[in-house]
């Protein structure tokens, strides 16, 4: 690692509407170093690299970005590319129906007499791949590769453009162990050629295996830059977590009433291949109770909720009862009509009509009950919307503000409000606090308390063990589509939940 600083951000501030994503962050990157960015979801890592890559153009933020000591004004990602900054996003940007070689050279095909020189494309592709230590046939269709190999192709493509700075946003999230090793080797190889790398990962062992320096972000602020050799994982975690108020879970238990939702031996076939994806699911949610559902990625938590709403899979076996009656829902419309409501994890995609106002969104699921004759009763609709806005403390400039311009927390409240207006007996919440600020989280928890106190049942899916432990009365851990364990609040610990999620629960005790 040299002392030459190739890329630097100085006191950058980036706001989205009322939300400050970055509150004055400084960050520098030296030639030939691997600089890791650590922080929880929503800490501002992605926003920072999007600034560096020109996704958020110059003028949309405060502060300064410098390349080789000179102020850079990126108006687009192309400007950043020209300055030698290559970024590899979490979502791959490959063309699955083209070969590896075509993907590597797309936009820069070598030509001969105006035709693409395919021999050179494949010869150079093979050379680039070999150079990166990737063993792949450049004539293979990218869509036929596994996710890990696709990730490597993506990196090879960026490397082929000889960047000065390479930004990797969670490159190993979808990779298997040996693929991760290949990738880390590749990063080391680039470092030895004096390429500067920004490396984002949630996996601290990887960070310590590769990084020279580590910058920790929390709530949009830098929490210090440390030399990897002089620190350890617990120090990084301490800085990532800080002292947070979301560690307070204000769960107020109420005495559970009768069973509102019951699943008995439910097997579900996945759409498409028809393989069984959920096996023998048994669970109950009672009135006034929060049932937590946890599990690792891919355990089937979200799929279970979507299945209940009639959005996913077909039931092969077993029965679902809602409020003592068999639940028959072929689509969300029928589920809502029977008293089951879902707040999805991806609220932008599945929850909101972004360009429409608060009232429109809040009333969307209950328009039929708001009718007077043929028409929507605008008076009652506005009244309901207003009471939801007040009850959930949605901060908006009037009821007609397009919800796409609200902050994440307020958007989530709009989705919650929409579902509450349908007066569900059982409310399914899929990661209800993901990506929203601390204050809004607390308000969601308070809302859960109020709803259970009023006799509703809540099913809370969360990947944060702390949230599950703090807010649930009972917890079911899923493991690869099966029940890994069911716990009362009193007997649940982080260790036991994790063991159940990994299918290693000891039956004793």
């Amino acid at each position, binding site marked *: 690692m040299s002392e030459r600083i190739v890329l630097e951000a100085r006191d950058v501030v980036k706001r989205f509407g009322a939300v400050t994503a970055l509150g004055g962050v400084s960050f520098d990157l030296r030639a030939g170093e691997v600089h890791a960015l650590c922080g929880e979801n929503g800490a501002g890592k992605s926003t920072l690299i999007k600034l560096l890559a020109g996704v958020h153009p110059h003028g949309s933020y405060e502060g300064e970005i410098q390349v080789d000591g000179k102020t850079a004004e990126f108006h687009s990602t192309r400007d950043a590319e020209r300055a030698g900054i290559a970024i590899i996003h979490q979502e791959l940007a490959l063309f699955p129906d083209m070969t590896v070689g075509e993907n590597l050279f797309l936009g820069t095909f070598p030509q001969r007499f105006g035709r693409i020189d395919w021999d050179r494309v494949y010869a150079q592709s093979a050379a680039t791949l070999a150079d990166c230590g990737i063993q792949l046939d450049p004539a293979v269709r990218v869509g036929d590769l596994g996710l890990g190999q696709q990730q490597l192709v993506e990196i090879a493509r960026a490397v082929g453009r000889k960047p000065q700075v390479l930004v990797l946003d969670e490159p190993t999230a979808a990779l298997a162990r040996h693929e991760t090793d290949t990738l880390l080797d590749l990063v080391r190889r680039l470092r030895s050629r004096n390429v500067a790398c920004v490396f984002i990962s949630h996996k601290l062992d990887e960070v310590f295996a590769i990084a020279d320096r580590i910058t920790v972000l929390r709530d949009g602020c830098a929490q210090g830059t440390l030399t990897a050799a002089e620190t350890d994982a617990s120090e990084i975690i301490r800085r990532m977590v800080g002292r947070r108020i979301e560690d307070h879970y204000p769960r107020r238990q109420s005495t559970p009433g009768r069973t509102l939702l019951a699943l008995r031996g439910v097997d579900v076939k996945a759409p498409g291949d028809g393989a069984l994806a959920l096996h023998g699911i048994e669970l109950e949610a009672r009135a006034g109770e929060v049932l937590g559902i946890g599990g690792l990625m891919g355990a089937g938590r979200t799929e279970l909720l979507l299945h209940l709403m009639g959005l996913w899979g077909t039931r092969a076996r077993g029965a679902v009862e809602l409020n003592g009656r068999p639940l028959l829902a072929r689509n969300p419309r029928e589920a809502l009509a029977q008293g089951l409501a879902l707040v999805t994890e991806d609220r932008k995609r599945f929850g909101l009509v972004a*360009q*429409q106002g608060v009232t429109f969104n809040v009333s969307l699921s209950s328009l039929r009950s708001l009718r007077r004759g043929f*028409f929507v009763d605008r008076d009652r609709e*506005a009244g309901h919307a207003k009471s939801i806005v007040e009850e959930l403390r949605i901060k908006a400039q009037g009821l007609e503000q397009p919800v796409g311009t609200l902050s994440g927390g307020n958007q989530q409240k709009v989705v919650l409000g929409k579902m509450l207006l349908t007066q569900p007996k059982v409310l399914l919440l899929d990661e209800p606090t993901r990506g929203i600020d601390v204050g809004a989280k607390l308000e969601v928890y308070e809302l859960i308390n109020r709803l259970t106190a009023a006799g509703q049942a809540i099913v809370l899916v969360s990947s944060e063990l702390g949230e599950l432990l703090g807010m649930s009365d009972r917890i079911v851990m899923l493991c690869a589509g099966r029940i890994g364990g069911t716990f009362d609040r009193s007997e649940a610990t982080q260790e036991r939940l994790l063991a159940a999620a990994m299918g290693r629960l000891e039956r004793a005790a």
Partner: protein
Amino acid sequence: MNRFATRELSMLVALLAIWAFFAWQEPVFLSARNLSLLSVELAVTAVLALGMLVVLLPGQIDLSAGSGVGLAGAVAAVLVFWHDVPAPVALLIAALGAVLVWSAMGALIAIERIPAFIMTLGGLLVFRGLHWLVIENQTVPVVVGGGQNVYSLLTTYYLPVVAGYALAGLAVVAIVASALAARRRRQSYGFAVDDGEITFLQLFALAQMVFLVVIVTNGYRGVPIALVILGLVAVLVHQLVTNTPFGRYLYAIGGNEEAAVVSGVPVRNAIIGAYALMGGVVALTGFMQTAYSGASTSTVGSLMELDAVAACVIGGTSLRGGRGTVLGVLFGALIMASLLNGMTLMAVSPEAKYIARGSVLALAVWLDLRLGKDR
């Protein structure tokens, strides 16, 4: 809000520029007779465009509208002229047929997921072929022996002068009453309302426009019944898209279809409903357009779908769905109808007309993208 105003204003300037240009080139453009004709042409274009709005809102499109116009008018004309069917019955049969066919297209689009563009492009060709088949490539008048019937009167009946004024008075009273009710409602919920003076000025300007239209058309033969039909369709569609669950569903589907599904919106039924409505509108436009030509010929309705789409887009409707208003579409239709009318007065060649129509369509989309960028 500022952006919005920019857009509206630039469209108004465009309309005034078009009118000024034609008035300068052909002073007869502003004569009572021509304005009356223009209002009938506007009615035909605008009714179809309002149907198109309902289809565009959920992010769909109907390219078969123009040839559907020709076919519906042809079926009714053939029934009247060759089969001696009473005009009202003939119109009803053709209209029901159109609603059925469009519902079927809607079902194929919504349930079988055939892209609307392809489905209705197919419809365009099929209906054009059927149209020519039905009229056996002849000219089929809408009424026997130069008389009158409900069909021919669609574009040739004019309200008596007094009835015109009475209608204008009624319309103004209705508009003022609903505006005041809306204002009271907003106040009762504690929402901010515009300054009373501004509301008054807006209503006053609107009332003036209504009476101006009546005065001008009364200067020729009276208010054309076609214009009254347009008024009714406009009120109906406006109520439908803004104040019924069905209309909200259309905006929701166009805005974010996945979220609409999760929110329990009956996506399929709403899309089928939109096409069923379009079928009715296509039939109505077909009757008016054929009546305006006096007979069904092989060219009636040709390319009208593009005028309808252009009117919607000029009026601020998004082709991706989720955005669009009745008022905007009426405005867009007025621009399109004015252009066509003025060019006809100037005896512009058909070639040049096509080029002008196409350019305006592309220009409108481009303007929409430019002005809508930051929204």
